[in-house]
């Protein structure tokens, strides 16, 4: 289970904030793996451990060492990091 994509997205089914992040990942054609968690916050220990919070989306980017929550922050980060001049 090693050697996966550098970017891991913690997401929840039918979460619009998660889809917003997915759209930007797709826009820049970034390879990422999705880890789906459960709706109840109490069942999101993995997200808490990784990011310090229980909210999704959360992203871990091994390219830059960045771990981040909150979709607006993540979207800004992706534009700044991968938007470039293409």
């Amino acid at each position, binding site marked *: *289970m090693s*050697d996966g994509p550098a970017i891991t997205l913690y997401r929840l089914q039918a979460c619009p904030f998660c889809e917003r992040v997915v759209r930007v990942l797709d826009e820049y054609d970034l390879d990422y793996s999705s880890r789906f*968690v*459960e709706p109840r916050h109490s069942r999101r*220990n993995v997200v808490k451990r990784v990011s310090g919070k229980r909210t999704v989306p959360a992203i871990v980017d091994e390219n830059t060492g960045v771990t981040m929550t909150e979709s607006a922050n993540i979207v800004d980060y992706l534009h700044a990091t991968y938007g470039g001049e293409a």
Partner: protein
Amino acid sequence: MDLGFDVVDLPETDHVEAGETAPDFTRPLVNEEYWEDVSLSALTDDGPVLLVAHTMNGAFPATYTWNEIRDRDWGERFDVQVVGISVSDPYAHTRLIEDRDIDHALFSDPAAGVAAEYGIEHDLDGMAGVTEFRPAVFLVDADRTVQYAWASQEWPEFPDYDDVEAALEAL
């Protein structure tokens, strides 16, 4: 009064056998915290895999199988990654992992495509529109060669756990 008990014979099947290469597949692999798409070959890259196919979570066959595997502690006693597979969805797998105190991850294959690939499909108990896995066990080594294969011929039928254990010892 005759209380004779009939087991049901399952149709003959041409399932994956020992010596063959285990077909690769990718499905959501569910652990106690999350699920993500994982391929069988990604697991075998890390060493041998014991793939345990079972009928849908919730009735006694899946429960008994995982209780037995937990009690035999295969994951600790052998250098093997034990993983399950059934048609149950990831949320149901999460519940089974919690309820049965399972230390292993479970693949979710609701459309039973892997069952077709492995020749272990089962039109369970006449439920309309449902095809699932018949109970089956495959021990797959790091080259993805099947070292041991068993698929149920009757319903209900459970793996011969001692035979599986002998195969694990022979790894």
